């Protein structure tokens, strides 16, 4: 649905995108994560046809973003990170106004608008003025607006920014429902755990490059592979340490009371072999497990360098 290859964008001396690659399949909900200044908004603006890349390719459902703007606009629904509303326009009129931009008018526009407002829990606000809505309601209205022409790809730039916890949960639920109904969505945030709960895939961008891309499970597996293994021994701790030191896959051994923490570069089979070696040498184990990682620590680890520079 979305294919970005070697995307470059500069703002003067600043390199916003440095050969970004991104692939999004139909029906996926991609969490596009990165620290401030990583290039998320630039990527989304280019995908939405609001900005021209210096070089690289970007296709939405096979359409070259730079060449066929008319078709692109039918395919995408865009929600910017900052947006305003019109005073003196009612919620239903706001929806109908944007529907008319796509040639949807009259009763059909009203019907679609009401259905979408129902999806974002705003149907009871149809006759209220837009500027009277709360921030969270405006965000939901903008989301409904971006769906008015039934786009194939939804590009949402930090849709939950500035919302209180309840409104964030509501927004997450709406996005999850949209995804469950087969909608392809790319949603940006600088908070990874927030997206991890609802996204099918995650892409972490740092300094204009995609550093991690895959399903949440894949990323978690990769993350755990680098986490230390904690071994709790009942007896023969010294013997255990000696054995561990001789294993070429073991590094960084540290001891805390009866627990030994090791960096282990092997996979699950290698882990099993290590357990057998220890047991065969009369080291009794009460526990052998890899420390569970979380997405937040992964994000902090990946973006630490960028954060220092920003």
């Amino acid at each position, binding site marked *: 649905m979305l294919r970005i290859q070697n995307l470059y964008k*500069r*703002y*003067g001396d*600043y390199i*916003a995108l440095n050969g970004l690659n991104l692939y999004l399949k139909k029906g996926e909900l991609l969490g596009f994560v990165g620290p*401030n*200044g*990583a*290039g*998320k*908004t*630039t990527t989304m*603006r280019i995908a*939405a*046809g*609001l*900005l*021209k890349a210096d070089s690289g390719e970007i296709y939405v459902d096979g359409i070259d973003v*730079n060449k066929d*703007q*008319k078709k692109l*606009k*039918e395919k*995408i629904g*865009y929600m*910017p*990170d*900052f*947006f*305003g*509303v*019109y*005073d*003196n*326009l009612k919620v239903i*009129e706001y929806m109908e*106004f*944007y529907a*008319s*931009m*796509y*040639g949807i008018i009259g009763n059909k526009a009203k019907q679609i608008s009401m259905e979408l407002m129902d999806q974002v829990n705003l149907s009871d606000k149809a006759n209220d003025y837009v500027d009277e809505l709360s921030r969270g309601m405006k965000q939901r209205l*903008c989301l409904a*607006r971006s769906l008015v*022409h039934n786009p194939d790809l939804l590009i949402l730039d930090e849709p939950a920014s500035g919302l209180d916890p309840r409104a964030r949960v509501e927004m997450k639920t709406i996005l999850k429902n949209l995804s469950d109904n087969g909608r392809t969505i790319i949603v940006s945030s600088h908070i990874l755990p927030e997206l991890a709960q609802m996204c099918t895939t995650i892409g972490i961008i740092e300094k*204009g490059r995609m550093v991690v891309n895959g399903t949440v499970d894949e990323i978690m597996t990769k993350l755990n592979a680098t986490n230390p293994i904690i071994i709790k021994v009942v007896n023969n701790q010294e013997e255990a340490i000696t054995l561990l030191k001789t294993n070429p896959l073991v590094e960084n051994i540290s001891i805390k009371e009866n627990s030994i923490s090791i960096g282990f570069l092997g996979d699950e089979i290698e882990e099993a072999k290590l357990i057998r070696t220890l047991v065969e040498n009369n080291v009794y184990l009460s526990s052998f497990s890899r420390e569970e990682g979380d997405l937040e620590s992964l994000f902090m680890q990946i973006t630490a360098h960028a954060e220092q520079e*920003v």
Partner: protein
Amino acid sequence: MFHTNPVYKKELKISVRTIKTAMIILAYNMILAVIGLFVFYASFDYKSTIAGVVNYHNMMNLYEILSVIEFALILFIVPAITSGAISGERERQTLDILLTTKLTPLQIIRGKLASSISLILLIVVSSLPILSIVFSIGGIRIIDLIQLMMCIVVTAIFVGSIGLFFSVLFRRTTVSTVFTYGTVIFLVLGTIGILTGVYLIINVRIDTNVVEDAAHRIAPNLGNMILMLLVNPAITLLSLFSNQFKNKEFLSDFLNNYGQCNRVVTEHWFGISVTIQLLISIILIIMSARLLDPLKRGNTKRGNSRRSKTKRKKNNQY
């Protein structure tokens, strides 16, 4: 265009709901009414009481005065409406959303201009009862009034397209408004000022060169330089008066102050100036649409650097 453009519809809907529009119409008609009734009173009631004589030819003067006031008010109102049309969307942060819809930049510009012209038409039509004072005695035809309306609409399109152009060019409405009013003042007064300045310089030169034979002194002739007044909406109105009142040579009397220019142009001044102003409007509208297109604007170095500066200011987010 006028029936289907969503921007046009939305702008009209919003503008009729604001108190600002009602106040503009009220103020516009009040100014016209006060001045119109004052001139009417001064021309007829006062003169008939004090002097015992009424010159019905003064009705022409009343028409001219009301037309000039109406014209001046339009020149004042149109920049206020159009100079914030696009920059206002940008400031409200609604422009990006508009640009990602199926509407083309040209359609957005057309919708904005059409809604401004519609508002001007509303204001002008609302003033018709006041303008119809001139019919009370006679001498003014309906066709004269229709011509005046058309002249005002053309001026509104011309000034409106200038306002829209600056509104696209500058991010801030205040800057755009200053430039729009500046351009309008230049067109109305600046062009006359330039001609007068050049005239005076040439006059001084003639005076210093021809001192011995003052009897054969030749008045300065700016020739076709006078044609720059074709873009001056005030001179267009003057030419309309000349066409409407054959016994008054407003235009030629005025232009003769600066010398002689192409006779054909002078004879068809109204038509030519209206055509030129409409052509300039079309060019400005096309340029505005091009500037508004993010991808076309993005090709220019200026577009990139401008985006760059504002982006960096905004939350350091890229």
